[in-house]
């Protein structure tokens, strides 16, 4: 496929996985939020914004979650009574199984405390998964997946694996689902402030730069192409989530786009992260998480980041990526 010729051309969609179309997803209706019980807390002030140093609402009126913008008690009092189960997907494939222990132990400490959680750990070696003591109401499910060659291939097949798994989930098993990278650790609370219809996280490397510098896929022959002059934010592929039905649609669409690229012999600059960004440009998330929720410990912490909740484990990339 030639890039930048300026003519419109149609991308053939080769579909080697016909079973995807025959999957009908049944998912629960969103439960109505019930009455909040009485709570006493400081009155919010119309003329006193909590954070003046950062953007807290997008132009399409989606909240951007930063420390200080929300009251965890109010949100807990709304969400706890709904008896939710939150799902988490993470991929521990090949050498990445070594990260599972710290991921799970720190999640038990900080992720959705007080809620039911199902960890879905996708792995090609279930026996290598650690035995981690889980709190009550939380369980771990090892999801076997095919061995693949090369870290890019593993990374790109995640969308397919997640959408396939969601389709097989029991009705009502989870209401919300987060898809996280496993080579990361929780350091601070991650709670119901993150719940929303479709949630994306702002990449820590690109929240301080203009859109021209976002590493979007710039070749027009890719399905992840974003032209110059477009783009809201650069979202990180390590964190996304939302209502389980929305996550299914999103991962299925991304997988289709990845297949289309494959058929055209092109791989997007940052693999599924490029496709994620393309998707969220046209289908804007209903809630954004600040880089507090997707930090890179190698970066120095600027004053805007008051709390690091979830960040990368220091690792030797060459060694784990083979």
């Amino acid at each position: 496929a030639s890039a930048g010729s300026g003519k419109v051309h149609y991308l053939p969609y080769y579909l080697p996985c016909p079973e995807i179309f025959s999957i009908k997803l049944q998912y629960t209706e969103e439960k109505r939020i019930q009455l909040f019980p009485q709570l006493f807390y400081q009155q919010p002030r119309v003329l006193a914004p909590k954070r003046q140093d950062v953007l807290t609402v997008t132009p399409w009126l989606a909240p951007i979650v930063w420390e200080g913008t929300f009251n965890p008690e109010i949100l807990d009092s709304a969400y706890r009574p709904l008896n939710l189960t939150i799902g988490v997907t993470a991929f521990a494939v090949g050498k990445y199984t070594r990260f599972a222990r710290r991921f799970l132990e720190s999640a038990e400490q900080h992720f959705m405390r007080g809620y039911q959680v199902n960890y879905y750990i996708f792995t090609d070696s279930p026996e290598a998964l650690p035995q981690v003591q889980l709190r009550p109401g939380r369980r771990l499910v090892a999801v076997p997946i095919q061995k693949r060659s090369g870290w890019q291939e593993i990374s790109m097949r995640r969308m397919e694996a997640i959408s396939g798994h969601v389709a097989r989930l029991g009705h009502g098993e989870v209401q919300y689902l987060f898809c996280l990278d496993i080579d990361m650790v929780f350091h601070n609370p991650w709670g119901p402030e993150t719940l929303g219809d479709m949630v994306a996280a702002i990449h820590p490397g690109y929240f301080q730069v203009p859109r021209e510098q976002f590493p979007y896929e710039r070749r027009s022959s890719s399905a992840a192409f974003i032209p110059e002059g477009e783009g809201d934010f650069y979202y990180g592929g390590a964190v996304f989530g939302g209502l389980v039905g929305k996550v299914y649609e999103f991962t299925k669409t991304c997988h289709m786009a990845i297949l289309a690229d494959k058929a055209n012999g092109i791989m997007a600059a940052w693999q599924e992260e490029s496709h994620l960004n393309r998707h969220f440009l046209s289908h804007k998330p209903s809630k954004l998480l600040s880089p507090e929720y997707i930090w890179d410990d190698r970066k120095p912490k600027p004053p805007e980041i008051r709390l690091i909740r979830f960040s990368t484990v220091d690792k030797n990339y060459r060694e784990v990526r083979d």
Partner: protein
Amino acid sequence: RRDVLLLTPWLAPVVWEGTFSRDILNAQYVQKNLVTGVVTFAVEKYWFFIEGFLRSANKYFLAGHPVNFYLFTDNPEKIPHLQMAPENHLFVIPVQNHSGWQDVSTSRMEILSRYTHSQLQHEVDYLYSMDIDLQLLADVGVEIIDALVATISSWHFTPHRQSKACEPRPEPPAASPEGEWDFYYTASFFGGSVAEVSELARACSEGVMEGGEGAVGARWRDEGPLNQYLVHRKPTRLLSPEYYWGADL
């Protein structure tokens, strides 16, 4: 905007001029093929406001999107002939004239509850209640569309406001103790998804009919129950006082 609160502690956006892009929001709204309704009441002398309201709302309320206006009135013959925009519709629903305008106002919530349940839920996706004496002066667009939307009252927003003598204006009802209010919302403009509005109207009509005491004006009688309800069932989006500026301010 750095000078005002844009996000409540429960992460509901507060809509102020300059904080949103109507183009993006319009594109999202159009994709979903939605119909929004407006409910308004014109009883007794208030028929006088019908023309002004419909003219300005037809022009400025969700311009370019289909809107159903439901006008509840005891004077259907006094409604002037108006050219509505092609995508809008006007439905006139006669109501009975009760003795005294206070009584009619207290049953607004009851009428809203009844009609939403029986009819409106099948005709619209989102529903907004507006006072007939509101005149829209600028575009009110799809930034108002969300599950449960309330407007911050300008009365309690103005920093130096003392209680004025022009109309008896009570303080927030003593029924709700200090420290429990988030914001003070006006009953003149609220709305949301038809399911949420139906539930709100039902809860408020029951509250009003039980309480019922006190020398408070008709307009204000809806506000107590509305604010009480919204403390416990928090709005998913707030409209700044730009969206309702009391005429007598």
